[in-house]
């Protein structure tokens, strides 16, 4: 391992002709189907896994559209019905002066999902194409996406709590709208897209 001015080249299990287990790190000879330590299926990583990422991502994007168009909440007050979409709910919270909470909902329901679509697409595109962002930055992006994705589920929980609390015996009733279901699906699909992405691909650059 002589230093020739460039950053030290790190040998990967893949380049050494071996397979590393993504669960427990144990190194195996090629041709081994299952890890001897943890029993996980072993696979040499390849870009074919990106197809699964794209499939989940597109599915998530498709169901994210109705999630924004249809009502998330149906409020009946004094015989009148109001529908609230995701964005409508945020605006209403701002109207009441709850800026902090409006910001949480806005972040969880709009900013995080949209940036997740962009970030996962960027990561998936950065594998076959050369991009300027270095590997460690893209790896950080991947970790953020993986960590933050589940927090988008907040609004689905909020709708459930509101509907269980504000029932028929009050002047107002809150019922969940169909958008809650498609939003939950969208969060699940994008989480699956992030989970299907193999971070080893980020580091495997031909050089």
């Amino acid at each position: 391992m002589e230093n020739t001015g460039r950053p030290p080249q790190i040998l990967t299990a893949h380049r050494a002709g071996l397979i590393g287990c993504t669960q427990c790190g144990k190194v195996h000879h090629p041709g081994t189907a299952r890890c001897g330590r943890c029993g996980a299926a072993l696979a040499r990583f390849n870009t074919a896994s990106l197809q699964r990422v794209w499939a989940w991502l597109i599915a998530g994007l498709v169901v994210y559209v109705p999630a924004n168009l249809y009502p998330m909440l149906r409020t009946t007050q004094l015989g009148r019905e109001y529908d609230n979409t995701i964005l409508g709910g945020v605006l209403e919270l701002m109207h009441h002066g709850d800026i902090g909470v409006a910001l949480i909902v806005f972040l969880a329901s709009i900013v995080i999902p949209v940036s997740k679509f962009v970030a996962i697409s960027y990561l998936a595109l950065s594998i076959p194409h050369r991009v300027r962002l270095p590997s460690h930055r893209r790896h950080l992006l991947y970790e953020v996406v993986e960590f933050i994705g589940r927090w988008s589920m907040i609004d689905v929980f909020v709708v459930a709590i509101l509907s269980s609390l504000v029932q028929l015996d009050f002047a107002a009733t809150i019922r969940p709208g169909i958008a809650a279901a498609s939003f939950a699906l969208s969060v699940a699909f994008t989480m699956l897209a992030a989970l299907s992405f193999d971070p080893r691909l980020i580091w495997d650059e031909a050089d």
Partner: protein
Amino acid sequence: MTATKLPFAASSDVGDLIACPTCDALLHERPVAVGETARCPRCHTVIEAPRALAMTRIIMLALSALILMVAAIFFPFLELEAAGMIRRSSLLDTVMAYSGGLTEPLTIVMAALIVVLPTTRFLGLLYVLAPMAFGWHPARHAAPVFRFVELLRPWAMAEVFVVGVAVALVKVGGLAHISLGPAFWAFVALVIVTVLKDNFMSRVTVWKTLDARRRS
């Protein structure tokens, strides 16, 4: 806690090597002392972080989480008071909020994310780690159970739910007076316990312990 960089690998016996689970870098495996944190020199992912009495602490925390979950289910969760009427809502009411109509499948999803999956994780961890804490051989099928526990990790969303409760409280704030029931505090405690537990656990360390105990 000092970060330790594992040295790069030359070519040697496969048994002495470990591949970074995140970036596939090939590293020499060496014993990591208790309290030390071994990170991958390339992607800086924590590979091993053995802690004193980690297994015992994890099973204690998983056990308390289970008890707290039972409390959270059976005690009133939120209490809403408006126009002289009081409505109590339990965790189960919240789960059932989506029943009826087109959102029916969300009932199962809610039950899974808030109650079933976190509980399954706690039970699975107890099953896998309790024999480790006592110094016994691993339980039957401990490996697939632990794989399953790790698979469930992103889908157990108790902490997300707690933030959801906070947001909901502010939303109804103007409409009625709301008080938090004992179940809510049990659930908050459960979230704290879960986060503590996940901090004690390093996946590779658990796998190596399971492996070592099986052979001896």
